């Protein structure tokens, strides 16, 4: 068990390291000069040179990478050019907002999508199931920025039920959450239906039914119990992806999270800020994926992580 966790942790950290290194190389390969965007278009070449020297951009690439590695392992990725503050600190200030949004979105998704998928799987080939099926297709076909603007217009402008942007009150959480959840519900409910359909047709279910087990127990304990791992994995993976910033939705609703931060960092070519955002979100994503794996034995007692089973 411990060995397994250590191994997975090592693999995860390696992925993170490769990711930030790739980003480092990509940034330096690309055209465009961060000094220009920092000092402004009117800066003289002396000023530009000074800015480059200040941020160490005039050093050879390998030396810059060495400095970057030192910073990486000391957990300080340098000052953000545009915020004039440590880049890590800027990201950490934004992180709770993204976490809140992602958590509420995934909760709403789970609460709606799982019953919906089960409902569909219990009525295969009926007219109502077909209708919902087509609705889920529509749900996964709408661009989230468009859904967001539509909801915004409907429920914040025309009928001012919720604030239009930001996160001043809890009401501000509603529209972005719903926007994200529409797509996720469509995807997850279809997945639940697929899993449940397979499990409901399995022989063990026929046996249980013939022994007089109640239908609700059959569905929720027997079939759902065996669908739990793939469903949980899908929800977890979606959650991990959301932690990387629900970029589009954050931009639409002016949500002060990591997603809108990265858009700004890219626009201003804020190297340390880009690096810090990628580092933290990649770490989080790897962490969540590890947690998903660790939860498997709880969901299904047959699963043993690693080779040796521990009590």
């Amino acid at each position: 068990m411990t060995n397994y966790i250590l191994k997975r942790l090592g693999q995860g950290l390696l992925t993170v390291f490769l990711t930030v290194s790739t980003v480092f190389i990509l940034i330096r390969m690309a055209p465009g000069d961060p000094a220009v965007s920092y000092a402004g278009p009117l800066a003289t070449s002396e000023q530009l040179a000074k800015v480059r020297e200040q941020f160490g951009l005039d050093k050879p690439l390998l030396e810059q990478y060495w400095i970057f590695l030192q910073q990486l392992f000391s957990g300080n990725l340098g000052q953000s050019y545009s915020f004039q503050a440590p880049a890590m600190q800027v990201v950490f200030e934004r992180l709770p907002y993204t976490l809140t949004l992602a958590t509420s979105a995934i909760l709403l998704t789970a609460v709606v999508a799982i019953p919906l998928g089960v409902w569909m799987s219990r009525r295969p080939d009926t007219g109502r199931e077909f209708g919902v099926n087509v609705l889920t297709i529509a749900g996964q076909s709408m661009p989230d920025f468009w859904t967001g603007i539509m909801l915004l217009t409907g429920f914040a402008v025309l009928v001012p039920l919720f604030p239009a942007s930001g996160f001043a009150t809890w009401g501000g959480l509603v529209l972005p959450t719903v926007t994200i959840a529409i797509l996720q519900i469509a995807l997850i409910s279809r997945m639940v239906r697929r899993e449940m359909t397979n499990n409901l047709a399995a022989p063990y279910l026929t046996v249980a039914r013939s022994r007089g087990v109640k239908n609700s127990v059959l569905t929720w304990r027997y079939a759902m119990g065996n669908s739990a791992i793939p469903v949980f994995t899908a929800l977890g993976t979606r959650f991990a992806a959301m932690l990387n910033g629900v970029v589009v939705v954050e931009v639409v609703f002016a949500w002060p999270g990591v997603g809108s931060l990265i858009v700004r960092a890219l626009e201003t070519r804020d190297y340390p800020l880009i690096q810090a955002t990628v580092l933290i979100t990649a770490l989080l994503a790897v962490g969540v994926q590890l947690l998903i794996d660790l939860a498997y034995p709880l969901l299904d007692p047959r699963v043993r992580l690693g080779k040796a089973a521990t009590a």
Partner: protein
Amino acid sequence: MSLHTATPAGPSGSTGAPTRQPSPSAVTKADLARAGATRRRKAAQWKLVVGAICTLLVIIPIILANVLPLPDANFQDLAARRLPPLTDGHLFGTDQLGRDLLSRVLHGGQVSLTIGLLAVLVSGAIGVILGSAAGYFGGWVDTIVSRLLEAQMSLPLLMMLLLVVALFGPSIPVITFVIAIAQWPEVARLTRSMVLVEREKPYVSAARILGLHRIQILIRHIIPNVIKQATLVVLLLLAQAVLLESALSFLGAGPQRPFATWGRIISDGQDYITTSWWMVTLPGLVIVLMVVGVNLLGDGLRDRPRRKKKGA
């Protein structure tokens, strides 16, 4: 007119003569299964037809955009700013610079669709090649491909795409490449799993015994057997590619020349949503119609019952 030549299997209301052996229950399991199969077939047909209609409704005008009598997409007429739909021959109305919205949507659609198709072709090719190689050769090839797939799963995808586009400029090749990179894992994973099954089948051993080279077996015998299902996934990926491209261009990372694409048109109209609803709503509906159509087609094709039963 009815002659008494009705075949016993015919569903026409012949007077008596039960065509099946009577069974203890009126409705047998076989009846249920047959009814379910019929409903499934009907549903799949419905999806195919409606999907095709939706897709064609969008695609045909896009293809004909250069022929149709439309104003130039980039022609600005400040005297005709923000006209509502159906005025002065502007079917979709005009935007804040007096450009014809329908023309913008159609010309932008040409760019969006081109990017989507190219991206899907590239990702499909990469996916099929790497996936089948991983599945067939196994060993270190499989290890490398599987690791790549895993690594991409844990990458902040949209962030990386934005990064690449922001750094290398929003040109059509860059965006195409970026979308292809985002999508190849899905094809690769599927192809790999199908090839894993396929390579254990007797015809592969037969081909090997006949002395065919491994690459020949893979290309001439295995890939043709899996390509059909892979194409189906690629069709569904086209829908995603269109959505991804529109998201990128909404965030300002889309192509600007020759025409602004769908996401950009919507983000342009965003500021005028309270006064000019059509500038966001209509382009969005066009995207939805097109993507719903492609998704329905893909779904219908997948659910469609196999016509030929496999010969024993």
